[in-house]
């Protein structure tokens, strides 16, 4: 059992949990993820590590309530426990002094991006950060990110704050010489970033989030095509060279269980599991 020691709501439906997991905290590195299962009947879901405190023995992750499991997770309170957390999983990010780095964090993935930005700064990089969301209400960690970045930009899909969309990146890249780009966020966003950076030849690292079950290389559901080869995101990734990734294949595989996911979420709400009393 893993106890939740702190809970925060960062934006509507976006929540942060800090859980007591000293052994995971001891080993966790930026870029890695955990898999949790809320209870015996639950699903195993992967979430990226957004922070760790080795002294306190805690690990932090931030999640977006998109379906049954994440909604159920969101109802847990400080002091509640999660049955099992496995981690750290996946390969850590490559952190060294690359020089001038462009970091782009979208949606809920702004949280783990903050951890990367910290590590990149500590390694001596100059970091330019872009955070993005659908609308301005869904942005979070602005101040924290700004404090760590040499340059800082905001983008929203609807233009309610900062730039509208990611089109401005092209100009940004033309004006600055970036040695590396790191993108974490929704697949479409990472795809767009890669399309923009490719002509400039800037190495671009993306974090792939296919559906996963075991997270240790045993089921193959997380298979993605990278450079024409089949890779398992959980053990070969989750970070890959974005210019080699088949994003459309990934999008298709992420949708595989859509009807079942909807059913699960709907039933749960209908039966009052969400705490609404079945209304």
């Amino acid at each position, binding site marked *: 059992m893993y106890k939740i020691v702190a809970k925060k709501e960062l934006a509507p439906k976006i929540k942060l949990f800090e859980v007591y997991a000293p*052994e*995971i905290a001891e*080993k966790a590195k930026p870029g*890695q993820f955990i898999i949790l*299962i809320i209870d015996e*009947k*639950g*699903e*195993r879901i992967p979430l990226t590590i957004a922070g760790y405190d080795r002294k306190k023995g805690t690990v932090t992750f931030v999640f977006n309530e998109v379906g*049954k*499991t994440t909604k159920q997770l969101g109802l847990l309170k400080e002091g509640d426990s999660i*049955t*099992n*957390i*496995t*981690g*750290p*999983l996946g390969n850590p990010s490559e952190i060294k002094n690359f020089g001038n780095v462009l970091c782009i964090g979208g949606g809920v993935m702004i949280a783990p991006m903050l951890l990367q930005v910290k590590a990149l700064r500590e390694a001596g990089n100059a970091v330019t950060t872009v955070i993005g969301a659908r609308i301005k209400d869904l942005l979070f960690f602005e101040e924290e990110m700004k404090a760590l970045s040499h340059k800082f930009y905001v983008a929203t899909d609807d233009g309610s704050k900062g730039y509208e969309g990611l089109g401005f990146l092209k100009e940004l890249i033309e004006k600055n010489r970036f040695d590396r780009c790191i993108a974490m966020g929704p697949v479409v966003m990472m795809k767009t970033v890669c399309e923009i950076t490719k002509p400039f030849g800037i190495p671009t690292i993306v974090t792939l989030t296919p559906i996963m*079950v*075991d997270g*240790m*290389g*045993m*089921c*193959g*559901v997380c*298979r993605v*095509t990278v450079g024409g080869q*089949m890779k398992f995101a959980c*053990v070969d990734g989750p970070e890959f060279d974005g210019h080699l990734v088949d994003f459309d*294949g990934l999008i*298709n*595989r992420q*949708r*595989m*269980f859509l*009807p*079942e*996911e909807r*059913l*699960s979420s709907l*039933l*749960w709400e209908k039966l009052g599991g969400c705490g609404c009393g079945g209304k």
Partner: protein
Amino acid sequence: MAENKPTPKVKKKAVPMPKQKPEVRRRNFNEVALGYTEEQAIEEASRCLQCPKPQCVPGCPVEIDIPAFIKLIREGKFDEAVKKIKEKNSLPAICGRVCPQEEQCQMNCVLGKAGDPINIGRLERFVADWERQKGVTIPEKAPATGKKVAIIGAGPAGLTAAADLAKLGHEVVIFEALHLPGGVLVYGIPEFRLPKSIVQAEVDYIKKLGVELRLGYLIGRIHTIPELLKEEGFDAVFIGTGAGLPQFLGVPGENLGGIYSANEFLIRVNLMKSYAFPEYDTPIRIGRHVVVIGGGNVAMDSARSALRLGAEEVCIVYRRSREEMPARKEEIENAEEEGIICKFLANPTRFIGDEKGWVKQMECICMELGSPDESGRRRPVPVKGSEFIMDVDTVIVAIGRTPNPIIQRTTEGLAVTKWGTIVVDEDGRTSLEGVYAGGDIVTGEATVISAMGASKKAAKAIHEYLMNKK
């Protein structure tokens, strides 16, 4: 014994195993074989000739004294019969169900020459079940040695080594990456062949021996083997991580929706219980026309599970012929009785998807058998121009599994073969001091009993190592 005079004429026919009827069982996940009653067990045991030089024993990978335990069953001494088996095999309820007896002990039984061999497996299962119902007694443990052993993986190999070492008085901790213990016994072999309550009973037994289970620990990521030895205070390590990496066909279209590796499919159904979706949260989607690629036990288990999940038609596509099928005969028969169709001498060449990215057709090519390959089986060769198309909406790829690679990638100095299996000597010693291995991680995909046999040997060697270590 006088009252046990040999019957003048040996009964040639084995006592049949009571089973659920095919038309009923094909739609439920309950165990297919129901087990012998006391009378049936005694009757079957009475057929045994008690050979002075039993042929069955050398066929058993752990050399159970078969005639001795059969004699005890015949005399109604079930308690002693279980003890006899447990001298060599600590998981009889499991082995009695899943061992390929027809290729081991039963293949050698003299009665098999002119009739049915003794049903050794069913007798083993009978006494183990009898004991479980009555309540298992925990054996005496040797006094504590003060030595600590880490076991990696809670499959049959890890569980066996843990039990043996705990009985010898060592402090044992099992690290298992998944959230439930049992390895293939819980995530692979389906409920209808091996009820999970039986695996749970074995795990409970091991816990009662004082073994500590840490679930959700992927060794190599959370602790490495050198860290376990140097920082975590363990004196020895046993690796039993199994062969769980799924193989794919490598043909176009394999990433379409509806195409599962057998491991994904079985993990969803068994470990995550998606047959009870949405009560359990993990989904599975089964179409009407399911095709399973492969011819081993894993293919049979996948096909029979798909049927139970409601598929209209399940077809096994295998590239060689029936004779070469590696699955147990009994399971092929069970599958066919349930209405599963086998299509031999065909191999997929590509998958075709619909506009939503879901598989809708599979193109295959016909095969013919050529000259034998290294394994002695005739090599399948494609027949030029013989491609044909099948309508499918679910495909399960069951063409083999290779060793789990994380330990090998994260343990410096550990000798590994080019197939990714760990190199050991006959006692399970690896190239690193104090580190031992056994089971599928050493042999590649094999059997429960061979994993158990290897880990028993390794446990013995670990014990000697610990007792001689200063």
